[in-house]
């Protein structure tokens, strides 16, 4: 992006962004979470799947800061390893969603006409399905592995990006620099990828930042139902699933993984909103995307 924007714009973006304390705080936490997730094998005090029958459902103590679960496994270590899954699912599924959204959105916005109509009807159609019902229907048929989960969350989450990109393309298509490059004979692909797309990236970036927490919430919801990432992988959702049966005697299994989700989602949202505000006024469209996300 930097090479397409003047230096002044980047500096202005940075000034606005760094002035927003909440956004900076959110970004710091996001960074820390990524480091924690990457270093989980080094940081985790215990092996997350090590069973210890002498310490079943032990409350938080010095050796197990966040207590243990029904099988005597260390909750802290499981939460740390869970961060790896959650972040991976967030990144990969948003990557898939963005790819599909950008491709379909630019096709619709650039070609217009019939292509546009068909793609936008498809977007409308996908949006009519409550996401959880659609995901569950697919999961009735496929064995839920971490890859299945990433893919289907991506496949059901591209509509916002497609709309954003299309809207950007509709305005950019009419701009002088695009018309000029077309008039000197630049091919469609060149015009789309070199001239239009780089200028439409800002709102996509925001949509991605805000899409990651949404995907994390979705994944943890599925895992909580027992239909997401399966054991032996520890994820925040399936720790909560284990914990719900023993809520009355082992509150720590419910409190901490949930807090981890809350903090993660909150920081991403703060960071994303900060980026959006710093990129404003170019970003009116992003608001619509954000609201669509509202329903999770």
């Amino acid at each position: 992006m930097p090479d397409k924007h003047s230096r002044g714009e980047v500096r202005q973006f940075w000034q606005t962004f760094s002035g927003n304390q909440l956004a900076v705080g959110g970004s710091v936490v996001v960074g820390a979470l990524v480091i924690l997730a990457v270093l989980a094998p080094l940081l985790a005090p215990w092996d997350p799947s090590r069973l210890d029958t002498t310490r079943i459902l032990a409350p938080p103590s010095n050796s197990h800061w966040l207590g243990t679960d029904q099988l005597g496994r260390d909750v802290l270590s499981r939460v740390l390893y869970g961060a790896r899954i959650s972040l991976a699912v967030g990144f990969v599924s948003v990557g898939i969603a963005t790819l599909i959204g950008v491709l379909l959105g630019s096709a619709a916005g650039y070609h217009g006409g019939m292509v546009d109509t068909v793609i936008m009807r498809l977007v409308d159609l996908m949006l009519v399905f409550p996401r959880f019902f659609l995901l569950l229907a697919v999961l009735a048929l496929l064995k839920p592995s971490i890859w299945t989960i990433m893919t289907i969350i991506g496949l059901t989450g591209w509509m916002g990006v497609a709309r954003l990109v299309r809207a950007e393309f509709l305005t950019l298509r009419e701009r002088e620099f695009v018309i000029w490059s077309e008039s000197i004979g630049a091919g469609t692909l060149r015009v789309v990828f070199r001239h239009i797309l780089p200028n439409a990236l800002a709102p996509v970036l925001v949509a991605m930042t805000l899409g990651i927490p949404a995907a994390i919430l979705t994944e943890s919801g599925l895992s909580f139902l027992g239909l997401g990432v399966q054991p032996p992988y520890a994820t925040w959702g399936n720790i909560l699933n284990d914990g719900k049966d023993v809520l009355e005697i082992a509150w720590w299994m419910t409190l901490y993984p949930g807090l981890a989700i809350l903090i993660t989602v909150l920081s991403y949202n703060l960071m994303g909103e900060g980026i959006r505000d710093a990129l404003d006024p170019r970003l009116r469209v992003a608001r619509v995307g954000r609201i669509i996300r509202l329903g999770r």
Partner: protein
Amino acid sequence: MLLFALRRLLLSIPLLVGITFVSFLVISLAPGGPLDFLTPEDPNASAEVKQRLIQEFGLDQPIYVQYGRWLGRVVRLDFGRTFLPDGKPVLTKIGERLPITLLMNVAEMLIILGFAVPIGVLSATRQYSLYDKVTTIFVFVGFATPDFWLGLLLMFLFGVQLGWLPISGLRSLNWEYLPLWQQQWDFVSHLILPIAVATFGGLAGFSRYMRQSMLEVIRQDYVQTARAKGLSERAVIGKHALRNALLPVMTILGLSLPGLIGGSVIIETIFAIPGMGQLMVQSVFSRDYPVVMGNLVIVASLTLVANLIADIGYGLVDPRIRLGGRRRSR
């Protein structure tokens, strides 16, 4: 106006067909077809069930024939029978579950609107005040709170620790023996926690949106004009500004419906409420495909209808929409 409503209605017919197509596609996605999952160990996989499946989906036919035949039956609302031993028609099963889910979603919608509008308006009129800051924090935390986690915490606090509210199902065990008014209260008290949880996230989103919409509207010239002609602040905000600020919020209401309905899956599972969401989870676990497909079609069609109502309602209150004939700009 009638023309506008009619046009919206016609436009949703292709979507309805699309819904059935996607639902059908999902079920044919399974590698090897749905039969593949019914392994010999599976108690559901008796030869009879297999035969029924093959017949129902016409699995020996080309895929477009299969779709055509299935669609022909779905149009008559015949979704086949469940795989479960009771063998009830899918429509009957859904019919048993639908009312409570609808009731809860409508109640949630009304509660969200009832709270979000005043919260948002107050935030906007006192921008940057302490009240505004507190609600902003609430909004961000509300956005980030997983509903199932909040549900568990509230169950623990109000159900287990304090013992104030029931935490599962719709009726207490002794329901039959309660006098009528207590039966009513019993039912309502079972719904308090689930509805509170379902409302929480949506409330955060809507009050934020209401605030933004209001902030944009109070800067408009016509609001200044209303002030200039000497109307009280109350009339300016409560009538002139509020009505206009509500318009975009109505659109969002329509857009967020699928999310709210989708939330039923988790809420109903946690609180053991026998609605559509719980039915969906149960049938996914038991791989009861006819119910899964029927559920998907019905839920999506309901969302479509709700969107249609929101659209037409939008056209009713905002003549620009119905005269322009174009869908709301995005």
